[in-house]
């Protein structure tokens, strides 16, 4: 065919470990790695036989890979009960990931949005970049990768909804402070779209390039069914990571998405 497409074949893979990561968040280690070097933000479709198939970012990929998952419904909860030796199906990896550029990077995670940021943070640190990470979470015990990030010596700023740790309130307020004080070359973020829409405004205001990782309901993950459409772009294939310039031109960003039937609905 001559064209390098991300193939969408199903592979049965074995779960090697299931570790608690934070309140309501766990990490599955699987006996599988992507073919090419992983960019944070790239994701796989995980088939839980008899239950569902859902998109999931790869939170790391070395000799094994990990998925870091928040329990929100049947599929994620079923995954949470899985034990070493259990099997799941995997398709992918799919999509375009983060591409950190510049020296001084500001990462901003909303909740489990830290998962797709992790591979980018690790790579950026290996490349000797300066890293600041702002995390917004429901409470202090819901912050994933805390040990890992601390041992890496990352400068972490925390905002919690309940004020149990760090700034009480929105992470965006925290970011406004950081932007006022710091001199960042790039913002990389994943979290609720409303949060990211606000961050896009802040980035534009401060003339800092930004990359955001989006979520839409995904059926194929491979760019053909149209279920994840945002203004004619497919989040699964053209994203999930988009740059600020692209996002600024989209009518739907931060405003509306599609339900499983393709109907437009507001956020």
């Amino acid at each position: 065919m001559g064209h390098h497409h991300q193939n969408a074949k199903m592979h049965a893979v074995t779960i090697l470990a299931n570790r608690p990561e934070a309140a309501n968040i766990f990490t599955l280690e699987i006996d599988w790695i992507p073919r090419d070097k992983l960019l944070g933000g790239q994701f796989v479709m995980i088939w839980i036989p008899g239950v569902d198939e859902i998109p999931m970012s790869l939170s790391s990929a070395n000799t094994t890979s990990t998925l870091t998952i928040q329990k929100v419904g049947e599929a994620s909860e079923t995954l949470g009960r899985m034990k070493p030796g259990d099997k799941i199906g995997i398709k992918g990896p799919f999509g375009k990931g983060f591409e950190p550029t510049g020296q001084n990077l500001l990462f901003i995670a909303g909740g489990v949005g830290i998962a797709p940021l992790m591979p980018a943070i690790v790579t950026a640190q290996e490349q000797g970049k300066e890293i600041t990470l702002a995390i917004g979470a429901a409470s202090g015990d819901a912050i994933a990768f805390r040990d890992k990030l601390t041992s890496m010596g990352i400068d972490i700023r925390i905002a919690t909804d309940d004020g149990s740790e760090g700034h009480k309130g929105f992470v965006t307020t925290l970011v406004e402070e950081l932007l006022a004080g710091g001199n960042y070359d790039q913002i990389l973020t994943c979290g609720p779209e409303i949060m990211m829409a606000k961050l896009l405004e802040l980035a534009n205001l401060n003339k800092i390039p930004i990359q955001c990782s989006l979520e839409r309901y995904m059926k194929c993950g491979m760019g053909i069914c149209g279920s994840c459409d945002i203004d004619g772009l497919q989040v699964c294939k053209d994203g999930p990571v988009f740059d600020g310039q692209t996002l600024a031109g989209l009518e739907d960003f931060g405003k509306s998405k599609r339900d499983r039937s393709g109907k437009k609905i507001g956020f």
Partner: protein
Amino acid sequence: MITLDNMNIETSIAGLKMENPTMLASGILGQTGRSLLRVAKEGGAGALVTKSIGLEARTGHGNPGILELDTGLLNAMGLPNPGIDDFEEEVQIARRSNVPIIGSIFASSPDDFANLASRMAGHGADAIELNLSCPHAQGYGVEMGSDPIIVESIVKTVVEAIQIPVFAKLSPMVPDIASIALAVEKGGGHGVVAINTMRGMSIEPEMGMPVLSNKIGGLSGPAIKPVGVRAVYEIAQKVKIPIIGVGGINTGRDAIEYIMAGANAVQIGSGVHYRGIDIFKKVSQEIQDFMQKNNYSQLDEMIGIAGVK
């Protein structure tokens, strides 16, 4: 719209003029107006077929709904769609492409088909494609599309209800597809689209179960090309109305096989996965390259020649 020089690869189907013979097949990026627009502008498609739309919104089957196999794709999306009412805005946006918009519809009775067709026409579609062949949505597919009498009656009812051309899309899972095409012609249909996917299944041995949540899906892509070419060939021997060939087209040569078998135009679905959204441009260019090398100057000169030699 893209302009292609050198060879003339314009074609027309029941009065719809296309700058090149490649159309987007139904169900691929055809759910939103903006993605349709993009397939024309950025992708180079000569016409656009929408996702199949029904009377009411449907979420479709659960995930997994699709996977890639060694020789093609297998899907059971289950006809998800926002319903005909919500689809007007999408058609309106798609129309900005200035290429023909073909509204695909599915229903379970001739009257529902006619109802949907007139609303789709009202939304601004340039033609209607009747999906008589979905292999994995109970009550809406092959059951109807394999009976010539039902097919003729659906086509007739729709043709009488609207002013724009009506195409019927057929399933290959029948002993004699040409007789179904004949029923379309008898019903006054303006064209036949062949083929839809073939019922298939993929079982994951480690799990001991079918992968698709619906278990059975529709096979598309390279695997079904020989079946589609044969279907178009057989239909071309039997009917006079135009034929749109679809199934496993990835390259210009694939498209030419269909055209030589008797297709006036082709549709591309799975190929969007294999070669990207600009597959329509690539295939159009490859058709032109072939024509140049083999001394054809008009697409017309190739249509159906494998059936007369």
